[in-house]
């Protein structure tokens, strides 16, 4: 979230799209209801009427996978009806920037596309530069090559008729949402958006979110109280795990994973440290080398020296141009190229797309190590349905793990609040915290390398890993301090803006990432968390003060919020170029002439009207402004509607490019696809339910939860059920080109048919919380149906839109 949960109460309009907030983020929904009580309008756009819809002002059904069309239509409405926040757009976005004259968009493709590689050469996705190497701008927004005009032109194709025909949303409903949401494009109104897996689980997921970010920039809703683009993330510490690099392409703190095209530290740092010639852009990632070197020092301690590039080459590297997502992992496993798997706190035999392929892949492993609080379908795959245990060579280990309340540590919520929690009870019997399991495994591996040697032994033997307490057990606090970072030498820090200095002793903690060094005199495991302790070791994550000086629910002394306890990021954009709050009623920040007062500002510099010392508000962006033109995305600088990999249409109504041109197509014989097929005529989506958690591997064992949602069901609209002569609670088979599941029919008024390109399209949906292991007579995984395909930027699988058939069982 750019903002945080409590801040949702400050909004005037809340668009919930790509999320079933009431069911999956019940605590977040409390704050949405607070906003509603104060008169905010709450809108739910979703294929299915859910418990969220029931509490919103109204629900608008939309066909799965057409969100960019819907939102593109909103951009068209905002731009062509002059509903944007002019002052904000001109000053705080790249709308005035002039784009490379060779940049083009034609029939669904941007300039530079290579169909063989399914990849773009981004050479033309650039700006026109002046003599100083600074992007040229037209602040009147009239130049036909300026970002604003190109954007307006791009989305002029997203007319009400076209969008309605693609999405299945009536023109009346489209206008209703567009008018309501665009009403926040004024200084004293705030609009916010809540999304979750309903947006990420698409082949166009990242671009859906980017389209919304563009809308928020156009309406001046970024950086303000009650605004932002807000991913609602879940209880399994999704925020914390991404912050600490659960995704293969990241190092901690969203630094880039090493790859083979950067063979040494110098090349790597040059490649990833952005350059900007505009003195008013803070271009904060100029500090990239400090974060990287401090990270290497945290990994390798004294062994990391300038001479050995701080151990840069001890870290593994990704092969250039190759990807390593969960889907790639199982694809390679299915090919027999992966020998062992550590599967901790996860149940991919249920939760990964194309479960049939995943389970076949597991059979090709030599060993599988699971650490979980219960057995699950992954660990027990060898005696699953249709598997002959005598034919499975894989040796499986199940390590009993501690549950969340049985261990100390930090948890991060979606609002980036990192809260320290204490152990409530000891884990039962032999169960250990994952940290303890890892410490023991690593000790053994280190001992083996020390004794026997092996390839790249230094990378293992030099790991610092001094994370034990006096009794040899895992010490979460020691890890947290290493994540925060230490001074490795006596140092004097000088504040460049004020000239003030402060001395630090070797061994003290680094109180802010602004003080990190690239010379090896600081360590820091994750730069965004630097500042979670003060130099004397005070754990700010454990703070529990309830003061709220702004009255807007920032609660600055409750837990620690990265970065530097800033509760709303890009908050300088809540003020005009002179630092005066746009909305005095919801003032999170104001410039008093010599300093900012309110939330922790995005940097101490004066507002941008001060041409000498002032900086633009979007300090993490190279150019200091929000990107309406976003060349960082692999699909192109402006999001474009493409159909899901499997959809009901043979042709994209907007272009001749049916699917996202940059997605990777998996080619194993189990990766079959059936687009616009008569055999699989119904759009299908999958989701969780309130009563179960993710794959259900934890909650299915809980009798009270299982009592409420005991078995797999498919939600079917009344008309389709009538057509198929399916009665409520009948057993049915749902099948796709990849597999079939048996489940109960839940016939409901909450799914209505869509009118798409003149034809009636039905949609159905199933929860993904069930597996064969427990309950014993229950159903198996919904993911037998889903395809192995994902977003082109993140490889998040497309669980939310594919095609199925439904028949009476």
């Amino acid at each position, binding site marked *: 979230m750019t903002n945080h949960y409590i801040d949702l109460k400050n909004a005037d309009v809340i668009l919930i799209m790509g999320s079933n907030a*009431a*069911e999956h983020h*019940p*605590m977040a*929904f*409390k704050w949405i*209801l607070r906003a509603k009580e104060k008169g905010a309008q709450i809108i739910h756009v979703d294929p299915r*009427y859910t*418990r*969220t*819809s*029931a*509490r919103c002002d109204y629900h608008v059904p939309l066909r799965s996978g057409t969100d960019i069309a819907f939102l593109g239509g909103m951009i068209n409405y905002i731009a062509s009806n002059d509903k944007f926040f002019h002052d904000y757009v001109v000053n705080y976005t790249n709308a005035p920037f002039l784009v490379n004259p060779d940049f083009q968009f034609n029939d669904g493709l941007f300039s530079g596309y290579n169909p063989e590689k399914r990849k773009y050469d981004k050479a033309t996705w650039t700006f026109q530069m002046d003599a100083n190497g600074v992007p040229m701008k037209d602040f009147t927004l009239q130049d036909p090559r300026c970002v604003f005009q190109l954007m307006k032109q791009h989305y002029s194709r997203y007319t009400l008729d076209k969008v309605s025909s693609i999405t299945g949303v009536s023109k009346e409903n489209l206008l209703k949402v567009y008018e309501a949401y665009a009403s926040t494009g004024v200084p004293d109104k705030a609009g916010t958006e809540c999304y979750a897996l309903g947006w990420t689980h698409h082949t166009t997921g990242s671009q859906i979110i980017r389209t919304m970010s563009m809308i928020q920039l156009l309406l001046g809703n970024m950086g303000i109280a009650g605004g932002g683009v807000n991913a609602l993330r879940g209880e399994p510490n999704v925020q914390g795990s991404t912050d600490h690099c659960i995704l293969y392409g990241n190092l901690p703190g969203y630094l880039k994973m090493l790859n083979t095209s950067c063979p040494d530290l110098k090349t790597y740092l040059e490649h990833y440290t952005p350059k900007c010639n505009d003195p008013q852009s803070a271009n904060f990632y100029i500090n990239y080398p400090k974060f990287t070197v401090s990270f290497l020092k945290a990994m390798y301690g004294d062994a990391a020296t300038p001479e050995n590039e701080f151990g840069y080459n001890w870290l593994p590297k990704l092969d250039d141009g190759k990807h390593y997502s969960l889907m790639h992992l199982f694809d390679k496993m299915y090919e027999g190229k992966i020998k062992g798997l550590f599967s901790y706190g996860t149940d991919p035999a249920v939760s990964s797309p194309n479960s049939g392929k995943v389970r076949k892949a597991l059979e090709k492993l030599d060993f599988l190590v699971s650490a979980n609080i219960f057995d699950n379908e992954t660990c027990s795959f060898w005696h699953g349905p249709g598997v002959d245990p005598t034919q499975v060579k894989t040796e499986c280990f199940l390590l009993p793990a501690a549950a969340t309340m049985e261990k100390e540590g930090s948890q991060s919520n979606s609002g980036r609040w990192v809260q320290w929690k204490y152990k409530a009870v000891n884990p039962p019997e032999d169960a250990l915290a994952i940290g303890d399991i890892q410490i023991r495994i690593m000790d053994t591996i280190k001992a083996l390398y020390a004794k026997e040697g092996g390839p790249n032994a230094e990378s293992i033997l030099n790991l610092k890993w001094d994370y034990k307490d006096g009794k040899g057990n895992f010490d979460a606090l020691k890890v947290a301090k290493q994540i925060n970072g230490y001074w490795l030498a006596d140092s004097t820090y000088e504040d460049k803006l004020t000239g003030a200095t402060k001395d630090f002793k070797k061994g003290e903690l680094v109180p802010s990432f602004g003080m990190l060094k690239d010379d090896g005199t600081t360590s820091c495991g994750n730069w965004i968390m630097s500042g979670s302790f003060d130099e004397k070791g005070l754990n700010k994550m454990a703070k529990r003060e309830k003061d709220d000086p702004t009255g807007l629910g920032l609660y600055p002394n409750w837990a620690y919020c990265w970065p530097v306890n800033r509760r709303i990021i890009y908050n300088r954009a809540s003020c005009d170029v002179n630092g005066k709050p746009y909305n005095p009623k919801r003032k999170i920040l104001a410039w008093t002439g010599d300093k900012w007062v309110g939330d922790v500002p995005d940097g101490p510099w004066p507002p941008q009207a001060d041409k000498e010392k002032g900086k633009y508000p979007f300090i993490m962006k190279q150019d200091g402004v929000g990107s309406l033109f976003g060349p960082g995305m692999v699909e192109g600088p402006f999001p474009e509607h493409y159909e899901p990999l499997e959809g009901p249409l043979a042709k994209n109504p907007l272009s001749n490019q049916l699917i996202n041109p940059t997605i990777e197509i998996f080619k194993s014989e189990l990766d079959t696809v059936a687009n616009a097929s008569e055999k699989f005529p119904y759009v299908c989506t999958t989701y969780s*339910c*309130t*009563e179960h958690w993710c794959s259900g591997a934890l909650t299915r064992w809980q*009798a*009270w*939860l*299982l*009592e*409420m*949602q*005991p*078995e797999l*069901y498919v939600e079917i609209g009344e008309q389709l059920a009538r057509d198929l002569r399916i009665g*409520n*609670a009948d057993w049915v088979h749902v099948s796709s080109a990849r597999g079939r599941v048996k489940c*109960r*029919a*839940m*016939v*409901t*008024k*909450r799914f209505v048919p869509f009118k798409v390109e003149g034809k009636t399209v039905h949609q159905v949906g199933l929860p993904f919380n069930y597996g064969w292991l427990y309950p014993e007579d229950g159903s198996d995984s919904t993911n037998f149906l889903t395809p192995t395909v994902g977003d082109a930027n993140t490889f998040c699988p497309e669980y939310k839109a594919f095609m199925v058939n439904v028949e009476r069982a």
Partner: protein
Amino acid sequence: MKEHKMEYVKLIDTTLCTACRGCQVACKQWNENPASKTQNHGSYQNPQDLEWNTWTLIRFQEYTDTDGNFKWLFRKDGCMHCTDAACVRACPSGALHHTDYGVVAHNREICIGCKACTSACPFDIPRYNKTTEKIYKCDLCYDRLKNGQPAACVKACITGAITMGEKETMIKKAYDRVEKLGGKAVVYGDKFVGGTHVMYILSEPPAVYDKLPVKPSVPMSVILWKNLFKPFTLIGMGAIAGAAALHYLIKGPHEVHEKKEGEE
């Protein structure tokens, strides 16, 4: 009814309920009620009805109003804790009684399992367990109230849909809320059976909701029973305090009820 220190009312605002069912689980957890083996009946509602081990549940109801607007209605069902409680009137053993909070509790130790309450209750709340031969129902977490804690369902409610407090304050809160909501919203609970200690704010007219009586009242048979026969049972209790005699005394009315309601 006993003199009580303070009457509590639990207010269920259906316009704030997201049907997360935290209340349903919290109730089972606090009261240590086991789960039933269920199946999906084509609805989120599960179990299908109140049971001896399910004292509260959310009823899910798909409803299209007279203007053609689709709504998904959620109603937390459970004991209404009537002031003029038919179950208390009907109970021959004194197991069902009003506590000092004005709510209806149940002393399972002295319950004789006669089921008089099950047919008397206008809300169909008390449930019989064949194994223990006792009646079960919500007591609004008497043990929690005694210790200054809100009922488990109130504590678990995330959105503030379930709140509780002093009776008059809560009644005022209910009417203020309905005024703010406008439209068809109504207060349900204070205008019958002497006023219930569980009240609803409903977004639709009461007649729309499944299994919610529009004008609940104490059945005439129970009034007759209380006025004509029950005094004898109390004399009997006072004089002998013997369960056998008690059972003999209540047997007649009990069987009359069974035949009348066509049960078993």
